[in-house]
């Protein structure tokens, strides 16, 4: 049963299994375990990023191509919800229309970009996605009639999900059952289902072909697989998942603007999470997202402490300023690509395999 559910891709490391179960339980009972608005926000963001990063891993880790337009699709999903609910009011049909429209747009865009750039060389894909994504970001902040420009859009969600809705008068286990909580569990179920779907995809025959292309494009083509077609399908699939993740984010924040969903910083975060978690392992996305988002808040605090401690040395203080946290993320990123390319999951699996070998 469990095997079926995980598509025969078990954690293959006791440590990893423990961490994953812990993460699952932690997220499932987050509202009860970690009271407070901030903790719930972090938990919800982890859920969104699990889907976003997992879908990026399908591209980077399994197919071996780099896209810089992943946040574009993320943003399209978020804007889909935001624009539809602002125009049509906070109703369920509006949500459905927003998601459907965003998915359709993502599908077409990903298909066009893929067919254009992957036809020639995979390396074009990285450059072209960068160009298209930056054009799209500019467009989103310029078309202020539709997208609200730089200010973004604040909107209401259907009553059942809005904070003012209360399911029960009495708090349950010390937690008020309100629309926020329902939204959280909606996100939780969505993230779980999408993650399992991703596992299903990468462990299907289709996923095997993707890995074959990643390992040796020429040989895959020679065996008779149309590399362009497989790569394009993979990029379309990952775009659709990212789009849903965007919709989840918008649903949670009840706000969307260019910086919340489309900015280049988020792209950088996604890259970093994939590398830290482990490329080519869907579980890595989950672990990486949780690690990163929890650390993100504290890294800035840590830097602030360091900056104050170093205030006597101006240049060191400037380096450690909390505004420069992207610098340290960049350093972390480069170092982990060099020394830690398989990420947390890869390390744990290698260790488990080595231990099993010693025993045998």
């Amino acid at each position: 049963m469990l095997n079926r559910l995980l598509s025969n891709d078990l954690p293959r490391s006791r440590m990893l299994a423990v961490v994953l179960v812990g993460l699952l339980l932690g997220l499932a009972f987050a509202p009860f375990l970690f009271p407070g608005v901030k903790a719930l926000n972090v938990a919800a963001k982890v859920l969104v990023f699990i889907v976003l990063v997992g879908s990026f891993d399908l591209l980077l880790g399994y197919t071996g191509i780099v896209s810089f337009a992943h946040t574009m699709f993320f943003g399209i999903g978020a804007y889909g919800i935001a624009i539809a609910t602002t125009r049509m009011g906070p109703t369920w049909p509006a949500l459905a229309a927003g998601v459907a429209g965003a998915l359709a747009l993502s599908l077409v865009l990903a298909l066009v970009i893929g067919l254009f750039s992957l036809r020639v060389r995979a390396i074009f894909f990285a450059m072209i996605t960068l160009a298209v994504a930056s054009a799209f970001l500019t467009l989103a902040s310029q078309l202020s009639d539709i997208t609200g420009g730089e200010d973004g859009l604040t909107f209401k969600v259907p009553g059942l999900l809005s904070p003012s809705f209360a399911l029960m008068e009495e708090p349950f286990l010390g937690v008020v059952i309100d629309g926020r909580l329902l939204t959280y569990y909606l996100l939780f179920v969505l993230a779980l289902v999408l993650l399992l779907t991703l596992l299903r995809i990468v462990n299907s025959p289709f996923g095997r072909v993707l890995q074959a292309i990643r390992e040796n494009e020429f040989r895959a083509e020679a065996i008779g697989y149309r590399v362009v077609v497989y790569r394009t399908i993979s990029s379309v699939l990952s775009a659709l998942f990212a789009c849903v993740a965007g919709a989840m984010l918008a649903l949670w924040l009840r706000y969307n603007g260019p910086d919340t969903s489309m900015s280049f910083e988020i792209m950088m975060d996604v890259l970093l999470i994939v590398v830290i978690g482990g490329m080519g392992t869907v579980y890595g996305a989950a672990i990486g997202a949780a690690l990163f988002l929890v650390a993100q808040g504290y890294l800035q605090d840590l830097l602030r402490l360091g900056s104050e401690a170093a205030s006597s040395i101006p240049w060191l203080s400037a380096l450690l300023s909390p505004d420069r946290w992207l610098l340290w993320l960049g350093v972390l990123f480069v170092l982990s690509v060099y020394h830690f390319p398989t990420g947390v999951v890869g390390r744990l699996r290698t260790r488990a395999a080595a231990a099993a070998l010693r025993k045998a």
Partner: protein
Amino acid sequence: MTIQARGFDWIPLALVPALALVMLPLVGSPSSWLTLTVAGLAMGLIIFVIASGLTLVFGLMDVLNFGHGLFIALGAFVATTVLGTMSDWTGSASLWRNLAAVLPAMLVAMAVAGAVGLAFERFIVRPVYGQHLKQILITMGGMIIGEELIKVVWGPQQIALPLPEAMRGSVLLGEAAIEKYRLFVVVVGLLVFGALAWTLNRTKIGLLIRAGVQDREMVEALGYRIRRLFVAVFAMGSALAGLGGVLWGLYQQMVLPQMGAQVNVLIFIVIIIGGLGSTTGALVGALLVGLMANYTGFLAPKVALFSNIALMAAILLWRPQGVYPVSNR
């Protein structure tokens, strides 16, 4: 600049005047058309100065440097510092004194960008040779680190980079007003292009570079150390990007730490249009992109960025490898 036995392929080069002529009726008045065309050529030449290094680096060693934009921003910021210390000379009305200020600024910017380029090659690029995926990730990371370091040194805000006194204003050519600085940029751009063409076509080093782009292993088999050549080209390419950054910063009259990332997008479009590894292609691509950006900026400002992507898409439909494909890739 590749000499082909079958003779030179003129069609892509002819696209540049063709685009300009097609736009003439769309723009309407000939005087604004002339202004836009000169602006487009100036912008195109700046982009070419920046892109030439990137495309050579790719052609020689199959290294795609996503951090190239860093050197643009670096050059521009160095120029603000250098020109800031020479405000007497930039403020003077004499063109010669202005040039005497701008020229050292350019040279210092090139030197700094070149030196940082050497370090970038050594610490960021060299460990990941031959691994495209890691190269893209690492150079992107290097770019972020560099951008943040620029913010540490010069501050995160934008800095004004005013034009020297004598280069402000414009000359009237009939009814068309042409900014003096754009003419200056065209002159500098053509000088760089000339120097590059001469080096690549008339010197031993240039011969080796061209041969290396065509067939790296053969050049190595003949006993040349292509690695050293590559390091030199990488540093030179970074220096040219620094020069381009100075020109670009003066063109915009301000510099931003993020400017590298912004220009990077244009550069990628240019080298894809030109064919990865081809310098002539980069020139054609840069001029097309520069002209297109100015015409559409005038006709339909909101779609200006997309016009370049549309241009690239059209070119790729026509020649999927870019206008001047490099043979063995």
